[in-house]
């Protein structure tokens, strides 16, 4: 066999003639264009994302302004409400006298200049409020998503590989429990058990009261304290994050486990997995390269949605476990009909969703050459 590197052009055999035009013509134009199709793909995705963001401002604006509720009543005290001058001044100041479309365009115009309006609650620019609150929630969500991905995907793989064995059965029950427990209930139970009864974990706030947060670099206390080498603060920040992060992750662990299990089972059924085994590759390579890689696209889809969902999930967790982040801010804003703040939160979450979906789409292209090359 080793002597047989037959010259492919030596014999223009008849069977080849039938098949080669198809196979032979394809590489030319594709290879010549290089990464161009992918660049265009990215560009299209970006523009769609931008359009989505604009659409979301419209939707959020219409929804927040059409809720039955009076911002005047929500923001002014009893005496001020009965003072026509004060009410008129409040309306004038917040542009409530204009028509809804005109209010919207004013808002959009200001937004383009980086002005998200002033919170009627804190009397600070919404932008500054968000800058304060977002890092706390992002830190929590990031930690929770890492937890959820590692545990959820890991359990899903184990369940699929040991299909119908006892690990699979245990994992299926656990994941079902994970998706079945409401977050607000789980948060209370976890707090009661681990913090109140057992006293293992301090909960409430990002650091103990009175502690000085690390110098702001990223706004994530754990990261910042590590960057300046303050391990004490790191331990404090980290331990306080464990409980809310686990509660936030619980549902998503369940979701990811179930999706991963299904995706891996589907991938295991592929002919090319049997072909890979027939090649004599070690089982770990078969699983990693021939099963997980194709399963990754569907896992990625769910993971992207999960991260977006986590930011929304923080509303419950942050309120039950007193985590001073975006969730609490959103809750208070909604309670007080603080329209600029609500708009700010909506817009932020929307942008995060869009960006994550964009990343997921790009990662599809990285993982799957069929998307990248066509």
């Amino acid at each position: 066999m080793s002597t047989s590197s037959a010259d492919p052009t030596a014999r223009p055999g008849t069977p080849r003639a039938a098949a080669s035009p198809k196979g032979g013509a394809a590489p030319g134009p594709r290879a010549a264009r290089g990464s161009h199709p992918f660049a265009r793909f990215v560009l299209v995705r970006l523009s769609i994302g931008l359009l989505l963001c604009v659409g979301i401002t419209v939707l959020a604006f219409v929804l927040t302004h059409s809720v039955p509720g009076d911002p005047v009543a929500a923001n002014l005290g009893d005496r001020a409400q009965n003072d026509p001058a004060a009410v008129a001044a409040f309306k004038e100041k917040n542009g409530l006298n204009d028509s809804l479309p005109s209010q919207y365009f004013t808002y959009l115009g200001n937004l383009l200049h980086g002005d998200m309006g002033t919170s009627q609650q804190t009397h600070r620019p919404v932008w500054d409020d968000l800058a304060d609150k977002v890092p706390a929630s992002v830190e929590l969500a990031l930690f929770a998503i890492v937890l959820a991905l590692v545990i959820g995907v890991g359990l899903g793989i184990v369940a699929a590989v040991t299909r119908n064995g006892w690990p699979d059965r245990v994992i299926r029950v656990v994941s079902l429990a994970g998706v079945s427990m409401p977050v607000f209930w789980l948060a209370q139970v976890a707090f009661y058990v681990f913090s109140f009864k057992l006293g293992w974990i301090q909960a409430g706030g990002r650091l103990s009261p009175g502690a000085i947060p690390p110098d702001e670099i990223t706004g994530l206390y754990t990261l910042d304290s590590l960057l300046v080498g303050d391990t004490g603060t790191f331990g404090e920040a980290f331990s306080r994050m464990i409980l809310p992060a686990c509660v936030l992750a619980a549902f998503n662990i369940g979701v990811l486990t179930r999706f991963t299990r299904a995706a891996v089972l589907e991938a295991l059924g592929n002919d090319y997995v049997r072909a890979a085994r027939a090649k004599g590759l070690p089982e770990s390579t078969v699983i990693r390269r021939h099963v997980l890689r194709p399963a990754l696209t569907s896992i990625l889809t769910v993971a992207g949605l999960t991260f977006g969902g986590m930011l929304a999930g923080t509303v419950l967790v942050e309120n039950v476990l007193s985590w001073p982040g975006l969730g609490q801010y959103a809750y208070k804003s909604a309670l007080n009909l603080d329209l600029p703040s609500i708009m700010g939160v909506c817009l932020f979450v929307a942008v995060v969703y869009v960006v994550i979906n964009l990343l997921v789409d790009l990662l599809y292209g990285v993982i799957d050459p069929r998307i990248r090359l066509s």
Partner: protein
Amino acid sequence: MTPKVTEMNENPASTPDTSTREKSTPGAEPVLAIRDLVVELPGPDGSPLRAIDGVDLTVGRGEIVGLAGESGSGKTMTALALLGLLPQGGTAAGQMLVEGDDVLKMTPRQVRDLRGNRVAMVFQDPMTSLHPMLSVGKQLTEHLRHHKKLDKRAANARAVELLATVRIPDPERALGRYPHQFSGGMRQRIAIAIALACDPALLLADEPTTALDVTVQAGILRLLDRLRRENGLSVLIITHDLGVMSALADRVSVMYAGRIVESGPRADVLREPRHPYTRGLLDALPHPDGGNAALVPIVGSPPKLGQAPSGCAFHPRCPHAVAGCAEERPNLLALTPTHAGACPIDPLAVTASKVGTP
């Protein structure tokens, strides 16, 4: 392997008889010798069901042996048993000697080292048997590097050589491309190149042309034939298509319900079938020179796993069945020293009666 190559070149083995003689030369150890293989698969209630029941099969060096039969007759299961890739819970007993080493006595690790290395397999559908997300080069070299411990450069050089062997145009560039950029025929050539990578002693080809266009099929068959002639490759080709057999195989074994019902040199089996089942398969085949003769299908369908009828498993579908067929299971009877069939009915009578059947 190299001395065998020259031997085969001197002796082109273009006729089945030559290779049969070559196979039976004393001292020439067959590449594959299966003796009394029994494969059991777990049934729905967990009790074992017999999928293969006492199969004997040999493949000599440089020989192409065809294993024919309908779906579910146990052809593919034989190949999977040889690779230790039976479905979960499946067990194999008997003897499966690859170059003298019994696969059934090997540790899982040893079987894995055999797979893709000494015995390689080509699957039916090249659209699904190639990993859509891995480059052709990666798929050609991953097992090569694992089994032969080659570095990346050496493996890639070998991959280019392999793609040239199976006549993929522009092999260097093909390494960086992906399966979806190739046509079906080209993909099957790539799959064959992958199977050949580690220079296996035996190639298992499971319906290698079934999923392909007819025009492309001939090319793949010619490629296998060329590889046998030029490289002394031994092939066990599994197919339900007796047309493929007649084009390629030196010897043919016909399987029905987990047993071999007929085996012999290609010309003998296809021209003078000994078993009514073989006869039926041949009658179901369109003949270009057959004039307006109607195709005769075999009535009924093969028994489901574990539900083989008593006696000769074929008797419910057999146009020549007599009362005794349901009671006693016929063994393979030698008709000539090389040709055997598992039917006690006179083959000449079978052939003659065929004329009378509608």
